[in-house]
C-alpha cells in the first residue's frame, strides 16, 4: 500500500522547479511536503537548518552521519535537491528561503490568518456533526466505487457526471461498445485494491492532471463538455492553486465549518468537485440544472452556501503512510458493515471466508479469488493459482493482494502473527514470480580491458557508484546501467597512466 501511495507523490516530484517554488509559498503546503515527501534523515537535516540563519557547510552534515549510513545520507541529500529545497553554494547548503520562511510560520503560527483555513465566525443554522460527515463521505465515496464495479444499488445514487468524466480520463473506466455505461479497466481494478486514502489521492491527482490538460487543449473538444471548458478557461485552473488547496484541506479540523471567502476562484470551483467525491461537505446547491447553476455561480463567483466542512477523507490527506489505515478503518467503523475494520479470514488451505454482504467488497474479492458460495452475511471463496494468475494478468501485483487481505483481516485473524498464513502469502508471491522468469535492465557492456587491475579498479568504481549490474571476473566483462561516469573514469585512468 505504501508503494501505491508513494506513486501518487512521485507524480508530484516531477514538477518543474518554478512550480515547487510557488508551492512553498503556503505554510500548510510547506508542512505537508515536509511531512509526506521527505525521508526521515532529510527531515532531520531540514529541521537542523531551519532556524540556522547561515548556510550550513555540507561537510558538517556529512560528519554528522555515521560513516556506514552513507547511502541513507545520499538519499536524503538527493531528495532535498530533487524537491529544490536546498541551494548549494561553495560547499554549503541553504534552505530555500521561501520554504524556510513558510515552514517556520507553520511551526510558530506566525502566518496570515486563514493560512490553515478560516473558521466561520458565525454559527451555522444547519450545523452538521462528525457522524453525519462520516456518513456523507462514505456514501459519496462508495457510490463511486460501486459505480466502478457496475453495481447499481438503489441506496447509492449514481455519481455525478464530473466524477464519471474523471474516471474516464484516468482510464480507470472506459466507454464500452456494448452498453452506454462505461466499464472498469485493469487500472481500475488495481485502483479498487488500494486503500481509501491512496484512492483519494489517486483521484485527486487525476483531477489535477485533468485540470492541467483542460487548460492546455482548449481546441481539443472530445469527451469534454463545452461548459467545463468554458469554465476552466475562465477560471484558469492553476495546478499550484489546486495543490495548495489539497494540502490545506489536509490540515483542517474535522467537524469545523470553514469560510470560503479566503479561497481563490479556482479553489471555489474545486469545492464543487470535491463535494462530489465526498472530500468536503457543503450544503446543497446542485439540482437538475447542476451544470447551468454551477456555471452561473462560477461566473458570478457566488455560491449558495459560503461555508464548507472537510470530511475525514480530507483531513487524512496529509497524514503519512503509517496512519493511512486509520481513516479507512474509521470510515468503515462509521458505516454498518460488520464490526471493526476486518471481515476476511484466510485459512492455510487457501479457503477464504468473508463476513460481508457489501457488493463492492464481494466484487473486489472476485478479482483475485474464486467465489464458491454466498450466504446472507458470508461469502466463501478459494484462492487458486488460476484466480491469482488471472488477477496478475490484469496488472494487479501480489503485494497489492496481500496488502488488501492484511488490511481487511478479521479481528480473529489479526491475533495471529504474522496476520496472514505464511504459506498462502508465499504461494501468492510464487504464483506471481512464475510469470517473471526474466528481468531486463537497459545498460552498457564494457569489455576487453587491457589489464586485470584496470578491470578490477573500474569494477570497484562502478560498484561504489551503484551502477554495476553484472560483472564476469574471468572474462573481464562488466555491465553497468549508466556509462558516463565510468567512461570518464577510464579516460582519467588512461591519462594518469600515460
Amino acid at each position, binding site marked *: 500500500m505504501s508503494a501505491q501511495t508513494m506513486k501518487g507523490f512521485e507524480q508530484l516530484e516531477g514538477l518543474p522547479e518554478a512550480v515547487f517554488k510557488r508551492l512553498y509559498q503556503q505554510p500548510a503546503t510547506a508542512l505537508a511536503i515536509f511531512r509526506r515527501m521527505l525521508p526521515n534523515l532529510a527531515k532531520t537535516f531540514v*529541521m537542523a537548518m531551519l532556524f540556522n540563519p547561515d548556510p550550513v557547510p555540507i561537510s558538517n552534515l556529512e560528519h554528522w552521519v555515521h560513516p556506514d549510513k552513507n547511502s541513507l545520507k545520499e538519499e536524503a541529500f538527493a531528495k532535498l535537491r530533487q524537491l529544490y529545497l536546498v541551494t548549494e553554494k561553495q560547499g554549503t547548503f541553504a534552505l530555500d528561503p521561501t520554504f524556510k520562511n513558510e515552514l517556520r510560520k507553520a*511551526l510558530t503560527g506566525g502566518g496570515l490568518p486563514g493560512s490553515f483555513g478560516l473558521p466561520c465566525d458565525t454559527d451555522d443554522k444547519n450545523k452538521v456533526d462528525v457522524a453525519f460527515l462520516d456518513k456523507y463521505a462514505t456514501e459519496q465515496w462508495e457510490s463511486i466505487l460501486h459505480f466502478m464495479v457496475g453495481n447499481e444499488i438503489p441506496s447509492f445514487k449514481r455519481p455525478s457526471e464530473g466524477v464519471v468524466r474523471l474516471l474516464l480520463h484516468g482510464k480507470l473506466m472506459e466507454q464500452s461498445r456494448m452498453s452506454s455505461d462505461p466499464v472498469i479497466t485493469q487500472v481500475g481494478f488495481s485502483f479498487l485494491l488500494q486503500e481509501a486514502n491512496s484512492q483519494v489521492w489517486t483521484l485527486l491527482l487525476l483531477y489535477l492532471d485533468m485540470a492541467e490538460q483542460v487548460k492546455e487543449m482548449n481546441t481539443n473538444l472530445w469527451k469534454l463538455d463545452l461548459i467545463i471548458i468554458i469554465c476552466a478557461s475562465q477560471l484558469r485552473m492553476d495546478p499550484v492553486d489546486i495543490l495548495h488547496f489539497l494540502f490545506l484541506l489536509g490540515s483542517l479540523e474535522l467537524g469545523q465549518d470553514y469560510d470560503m471567502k479566503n479561497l481563490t476562484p479556482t479553489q471555489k470551483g474545486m469545492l464543487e468537485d470535491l463535494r462530489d467525491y465526498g472530500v468536503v461537505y457543503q450544503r446543497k446547491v446542485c439540482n437538475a440544472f447542476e451544470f447551468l447553476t454551477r456555471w452561473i455561480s462560477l461566473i458570478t463567483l457566488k455560491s449558495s452556501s459560503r461555508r464548507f466542512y472537510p470530511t475525514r477523507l480530507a483531513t487524512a490527506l496529509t497524514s503519512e503512510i503509517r496512519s493511512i489505515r*486509520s481513516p479507512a478503518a474509521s470510515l468503515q467503523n462509521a458505516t454498518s458493515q460488520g464490526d471493526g475494520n476486518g471481515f476476511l479470514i484466510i485459512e492455510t488451505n487457501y479457503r477464504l471466508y468473508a463476513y460481508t454482504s457489501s457488493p463492492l467488497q464481494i466484487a473486489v474479492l472476485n478479482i483475485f479469488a474464486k467465489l464458491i458460495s454466498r450466504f446472507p452475511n458470508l461469502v466463501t471463496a478459494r484462492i487458486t493459482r488460476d484466480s491469482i494468475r488471472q488477477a496478475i494478468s490484469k496488472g494487479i501485483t501480489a503485494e497489492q493482494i496481500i496488502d488488501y487481505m492484511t488490511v481487511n483481516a478479521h479481528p480473529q485473524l489479526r491475533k495471529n502473527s504474522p496476520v496472514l498464513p505464511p504459506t498462502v502469502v508465499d504461494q501468492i508471491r510464487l504464483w506471481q514470480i512464475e510469470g517473471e522468469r526474466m528481468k531486463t535492465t537497459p545498460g552498457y557492456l564494457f569489455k576487453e580491458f587491457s589489464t586485470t587491475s584496470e578491470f578490477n579498479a573500474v569494477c570497484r568504481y562502478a560498484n561504489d557508484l551503484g551502477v554495476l549490474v553484472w560483472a564476469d571476473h574471468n572474462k573481464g566483462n562488466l555491465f553497468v546501467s549508466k556509462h558516463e561516469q565510468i567512461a570518464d573514469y577510464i579516460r582519467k585512468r588512461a591519462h594518469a597512466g600515460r
Partner: protein
Amino acid sequence: MDKVDGTEHYNFKQAADLATLQVIIIDTNPIAWQLLKQSSGLSFPDALSQILIFANAHLAFSQANRAAVIANHIDGAHFLSPVPPGSDTADPDEANMTPEQQKETSQRNASKYRVFRLFEDEVRASYRRLIKSTTAETVDAIPNGSALSGALGLALTYINRICFGGTGGRSSGVPGDEKSKVNSAGGKVDDTGRTMHAKILIVSVTPDPANQYISVMNGVFAAQKLTVPIDVCKLRESTVFLQQAADATGGVYMEPEHPKGLLQYLMMGFLPDHLARSSLILPTRVDVDFRAACFCHKKVLDIGFVCSICLSIFCEPPDGAVCSTCDTKLDVSMLENIGKPVVALPKKKKKKKVTDSLPESGVASAADSPAPTEG
C-alpha cells in the same frame, strides 16, 4: 543463470516504522529561571516558546507522533499536557478577556495548524493555572525545590501506558486522543509489543536534588530497561545525576553555552528520533561525572563506604554498624585500618600463610578458576 532466482522478488517489509512520543520535562522553579535570566538573558516565557516550537517540530515529523509536557515544579510534578482527566481545564486568563481580545485569539488561531494550536493552548493554560496556584510562601520556603524524581516517574509511567499498554491515551478532552485510539486499533506493533518509541527531554535549571538520588537513579534504570533515551539540556548549574541519566540511557547531554539560542540546540541535538539517531553521531559527554550520593546524608561523594551485601553507599560507617537498607550487620572492625598503608598488612600475612602450610594451594586455585578471557 543465477539471475533466475525467485528469492530476490521477495521484498520483505522493513521493520515496523513506529511513531515517537516525546515527553518534555521542564523545570518551572521561578527563582531558578530568574537567576538564569540575570546571567544569560533567557527568560522563562522565551524558553517556553522555544520549547513549544521544538515540540511542534517533533509533531510535524509525522502525524502519529505525540508529545507530552511535564512541569517539574517546586512542590511536585504536574502534567501540563495532556491534562489529567477530571482536572480543571479552564484558562484563568480567559475569563478576563474582552470580546475584542477573544476575537483576536480566534484570528490568531486560524493561522496555526490545529494540532500545534491545541497542544500549545493546553500547555500555556495549564502553566498559568500552575503558577496561579503557587504562593509566594512555597517559593520562599524551598527556593531550590525540584521534583525531578516525581517528574521522571510520571514520564515513565505515561510512556509505559502509551507505548506498551496499547490502550492509548487518556479518555477525554485530550488533543491527539483520536490518534491514540487508532494506534490501538490498527497501528503497528514491533516484536517487543511496543506501539510507539519514546524519548524524554529534561530542560533543567535547578541544581541536583541530592535527597532524590535513589529515586532518580531508579527512574533512570527503568528508562534504560524500556530503552527510552533521556536527553538533558542543562541551562544552569552543572549536574551529576542527569549526566549519569543521559549516559546510562544513551541520551544526549548538552550544556548550551548560549542559552538564548536554546531553539537551535534543541533542533539540532535533541530533535532526531530513534530512526535518525541510529544513523547520526550525536553530541554526548565523554567525561561523565559518575559520582553518587550517599544514602545517609544525601551528599555527593568521591569516595565512600559500600555495604558489602546490597551495595548501598554511605559517607561514614552507619549507626551501630547496621546497613540502613538491608539491615545486615556489618563488620566495621577492619575499617580502622583505613588510612594506614593498606598494602603492607595483608602482604605480611599472606607471606606467612603461604610459607607455613599450603605452598601449592595458591597455584591450584588459580588453575581451577575459570578464565573469563579465554577464546
